């Protein structure tokens, strides 16, 4: 049967198991929107209020489910509005598919109305992209796009479809079988010699530590990680995106590493004699000064992306492969070991940290972000999917909301995109309707994408929004306090009345200013089947500790003084 390009797009989405797409219409994509009318009951389109929101929703959906999230936009401004979301997904290896309309082929290159070279613009921020110039290529291109987005190191793929290709008719047949691409072979298993080299280093190590990243969850290697850690008694520290890769209440998990990581984790990395880096990429926010980073340690680095190995940190054993496969190769030969002394050291550091924990301080009459996060954690039994924005509240979420399950903390790590949290939470809820979803956002970042309140209301998405309102671009203010002598240039915020704002969208809301109001407000939000908004008015000038200043040595952390230390 002959179908139009637009119908082929819909058919391909169905073939790939897509049920929902996030988008915004316009001239060059209109044929595809028209085709949607025939697919309404099988493919749900969520109308966003800004295409950036669509890209983050697709991303949130992808992160929550591991499936490809789909967003759609028109040519020109519609497509350029996706750019931030694509870059965000690229940095965090999130599989999304963006479909954009393009001006008709004869008009390409003529500066036609709403023409933008979208494949050019998005070239460095997509894993791959396509401009489809023949409707006969469309089905195969779509299949290829899904394949590339979700396999290997996942990432965003964009398919730009000119309007006349959307309208053209051709015989539709979804290509069968596996996609075979000549230049695309993600590595899977390791060589025997790599495995034995890695095992030898593990055997020889006295102070080993595992650095577990996002790759653990993307590869589904949670069980294998746990076995490695338990059998060889190796403590595990997680990256921000690695949280959930191993339950945080596990005695061998010592918390997050990096700039605002657990001090004990950073100290352990610096003192270790072996780093086992699994599915992480030694971002500068986790290493600090590379010259002094883990100087006494040998390094095993396993990542699916070969170009990550030796990029920032030289590996003694570098293995390009799929983590689950590689760990499965390794485990049968792994001998049990124990490092009681080493683990004891780390415990001492952990104890010191808990003495400095702000939750153990007397802070009468003040509402602190750490308390808000802690209490949300408590009242959601630590089981919610939390989606954060970027800033102090993000780091405090990472510190005070331990995650037990994979893909339950969704956050923009690599790009640090303000405005990500709220729309990504909407996307996550569409992907995981049975889960409780909380968007934990700052007053600054929320205002970057708050237009999606209308989307949440229109779709009645059951997302609970917790705005951490400190009337500041808090994280920037923190840097100004520490490194710019408190010159608070452009960081104090005039804010709307967030509750009235929610009212305007007919979204139930609460304002919390005292700690004893938190439990009630959380329950209120949980009881409502639809979007809710809680504004937590917190201390204006909090600090996130510990902090490794940018470029400083990882062990050179600014710590919160212990009570009595002044």
């Amino acid at each position: 049967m002959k179908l139009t390009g637009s119908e082929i797009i819909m058919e391909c989405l169905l073939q790939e198991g897509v049920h929902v797409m996030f988008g915004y219409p316009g001239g060059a994509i209109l044929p595809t929107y028209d085709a949607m009318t025939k697919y309404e009951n099988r493919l749900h389109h969520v109308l966003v209020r800004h295409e950036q929101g669509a890209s983050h929703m697709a991303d949130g959906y992808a992160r929550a489910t591991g499936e490809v999230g789909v967003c759609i936009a028109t040519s020109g401004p519609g497509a350029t509005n996706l750019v931030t979301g694509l870059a965000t997904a690229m940095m965090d290896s999130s599989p999304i598919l963006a479909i954009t309309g393009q001006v008709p082929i004869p008009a390409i290159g003529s500066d036609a109305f709403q023409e933008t070279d979208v494949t050019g613009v998005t070239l460095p921020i997509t894993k791959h992209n396509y401009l489809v110039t023949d409707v006969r290529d469309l089905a195969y291109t779509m299949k290829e796009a899904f394949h590339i987005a979700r396999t290997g190191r996942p990432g965003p793929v964009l398919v730009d479809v000119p309007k006349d290709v959307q309208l053209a008719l051709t015989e539709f047949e979804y290509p069968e079988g596996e996609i075979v691409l000549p230049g695309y072979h993600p590595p899977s298993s390791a060589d025997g010699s790599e495995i034995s080299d890695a095992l030898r280093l593990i055997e020889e190590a006295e102070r080993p530590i595992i650095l577990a990243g996002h790759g653990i969850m993307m590869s589904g290697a949670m069980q294998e990680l746990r076995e490695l850690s338990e059998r060889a008694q190796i403590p595990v520290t997680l990256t921000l995106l690695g949280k959930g890769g191993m339950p945080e209440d596990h005695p061998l998990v010592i918390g997050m590493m990096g700039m605002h990581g657990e001090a004990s984790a950073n100290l352990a990395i610096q003192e270790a004699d072996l780093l086992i880096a699994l599915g992480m990429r030694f971002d500068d926010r986790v290493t600090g000064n590379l010259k002094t980073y883990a100087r006494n340690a040998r390094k095993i680095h396993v990542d699916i992306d070969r170009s990550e190995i030796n990029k920032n940190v030289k590996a003694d054993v570098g293995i390009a492969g799929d983590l689950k496969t590689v760990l499965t190769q390794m485990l049968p030969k792994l001998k049990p070991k124990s490092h009681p002394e080493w683990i004891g050291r780390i415990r001492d550091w952990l104890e010191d940290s808990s003495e400095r924990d702000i939750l153990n301080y007397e802070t009468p009459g003040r509402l602190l972000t750490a308390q808000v996060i802690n209490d949300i954690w408590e009242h959601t039994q630590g089981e919610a999917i939390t989606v954060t924005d970027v800033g102090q509240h993000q780091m405090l979420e990472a510190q005070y909301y331990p995650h037990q399950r994979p893909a339950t903390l969704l956050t923009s790590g690599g790009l640090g995109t303000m405005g990500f949290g709220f729309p990504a939470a909407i996307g996550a809820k569409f992907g995981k309707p049975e889960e409780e979803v909380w968007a934990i956002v700052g007053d600054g970042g929320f205002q970057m994408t708050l237009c999606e309140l209308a989307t949440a209301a229109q779709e009645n998405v059951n997302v609970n929004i917790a705005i951490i309102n400190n009337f500041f671009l808090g994280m920037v203010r923190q840097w100004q306090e520490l490194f710019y002598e408190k010159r608070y240039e452009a960081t104090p915020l005039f804010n709307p009345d967030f509750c009235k704002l929610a009212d305007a969208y007919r979204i139930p809301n609460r304002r919390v200013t005292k700690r004893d109001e938190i439990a009630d407000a959380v329950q209120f939000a949980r009881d409502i089947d639809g979007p809710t908004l809680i504004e937590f008015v917190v201390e204006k000038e909090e600090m996130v500790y510990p902090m490794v200043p940018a470029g400083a040595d990882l062990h050179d952390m600014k710590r919160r003084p212990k009570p009595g230390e002044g």
Partner: protein
Amino acid sequence: MTSQVDINKVTVVALVENEPGVLNRIASLFRRRAFNIDSLTVGRTHKPHISRMTIRVVAGPEYARKIATNLQKLVNVIDVRVLDNEPHVERDLALIKVRNDDADSRNTITEICDRYPARIVDVGPKVAIIEMVATEEILEEFIDEVRPTGIVEMIRTGVVSMGRGTRIHDTNFTRRDLAKIQNQISAGGNGNVI
């Protein structure tokens, strides 16, 4: 002005799909990762859908491997090899237009060309074009010799390389939208890897 060929030059050879935009992707990668490229050439192979690139990098082999692993990530890049110590043949082609307007310069040019694998391919009353194909090193030497006579225009293709012997760098891939081309290939019966 240096005639010294950097001893730290490494060659990376890549087979890429002959598709629109591929060169752009590669150039974008080099810019994005701030890779320092000495020369880059692209040309067709005996298979119409495959192009081959030779990339010269002023760097150590480790840097070249970094480039190679990044190149390999591009979906349209089929295969990448770093030729550091492998014996290989390499050639750079130059067209050099030199001043040729008195007996002295004519004699000098002819004399130099005799000592090199160079040919005078166009002669006029004022200028002549020399064509020279050689390794980069010898070419540089030659250019230095003719320079005093007066080079007025020059173009070089950049180095192309090929490993020696039976180490074949080729690919046999097949692809949907190239079905037509593939049919031609099988009809022509060429293009097999040894």
